[in-house]
């Protein structure tokens, strides 16, 4: 098995793992972490496409590599925004999850701000 195939299967497994965490974790921050795992799995899939496309004296196809770099930067921006949203949610409602059915916050942590 070439290293591209091996890491491609790795990427597929990462997407599955991240998806499971995204569905099953109640905490919003954990969902963000899981989403980042999915992202890195997808980037790895791009990476093997780049590796297999090695030609013209390059170690890999530069176009998917450039897309991954763009993607990493945008993923960071999205993560920073999502984290700020979660912190703001916790600040205003005391909740750390996204489930609207369970507003239950411990006494003293609630601060109404509206």
């Amino acid at each position, binding site marked *: 098995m070439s290293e591209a195939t091996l890491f491609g299967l790795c990427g597929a497994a990462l*997407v599955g793992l991240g998806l499971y965490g995204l569905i099953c974790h*109640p905490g919003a*921050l954990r969902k963000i972490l899981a989403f980042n*795992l999915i992202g890195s799995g997808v980037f790895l899939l791009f*990476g093997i496409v780049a590796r297999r496309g090695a030609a013209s004296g390059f170690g*890999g196809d*530069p176009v998917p590599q450039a897309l991954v770099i*763009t993607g990493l930067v945008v993923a960071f921006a999205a993560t920073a925004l999502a984290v700020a949203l979660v912190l703001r949610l916790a600040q205003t409602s005391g909740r750390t999850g996204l489930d609207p059915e369970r507003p239950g*916050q411990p006494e003293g942590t609630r601060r109404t701000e509206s």
Partner: protein
Amino acid sequence: MSLTAPVDLGLALLLLGLAVWVIAASATYRAAEGFIAYGLVLALVWVRLGSVDVALTEAALGSGLTGLLLLRAAARLPPADPAERARPAKGVRVLAGLLCAVVTAGLAAVVLLLPEPAPTLAPAAAASLPATGVGNPVTGVLLAYRAVDTLGESIVLVLALIGLWSLAPDAAWGGRPGALTTAPAGSALRFLAQVLPPFGILVGIHLLWVGADHPGGKFQGATVLAAMWVLVIIAGLRRPPPVTSRATRWLVVVGSLIFVGIGAAGIWLAEAFLAYPDGLAKPLILAIEAALTLSVAVILGLLLAGPPEAERPTERRS
């Protein structure tokens, strides 16, 4: 290359093990720790895939900055109460597991059935490379072949910062970002924050400079610069600027403005938006790279610093 097989296999197992840890760890803080180690191993994997450019970005941005962001968020977040800690019912989890297994199997099948010979855009990128005068194909793609993507990305970063700032409560507007301030730093941390940044700034500028011909470039350099700035803020040697600071705002947008300006000038000088006139491609690309490095570094640092917070003197009581 069969000699590298044990290394590859070890890296793959390490990567998957750390990913399982990130999902299965009992506390968010531990999961974030695992994520930093995971990013580090992923950077090694990218080296094995022949993409040192991506490995640099992953090490700096995916592991370093994202890891710090999540660690600090996990530390700031109030503890979840038991009702919110409850996992979904077992049936739901089994179903989710099955769904994820199906997705993984599908992707694995795609990986195994990729077409032979592999399609590639490398010759096309190589053909357009001499016109730009740049030696690193990835930099060439980012700034010539797919320059619109890069322009969009630099604008997305500005928008993300605006979104982040707009989360501030009304009373806090005009204040300084507060997510990075900590208890008074110890002498070891202050020492590190005084000694490391000069090296880091050198490395960042080096990455930008070699990015034209070797792996590296503006995003990698900017990330290292941002990390050094954030380190200085954490150590309490400097405070982040208030969001109303005019100079900061100019720094945030100057990269995108110059990019758009040069792109628009291309309409007259080279007959297309974002086309470079003959012979001027390399200096123009370098100008865009330098301006973008500055803006991206400032934006990344401000994204880590969080929305502005009201300066409440009572906040400091312990």
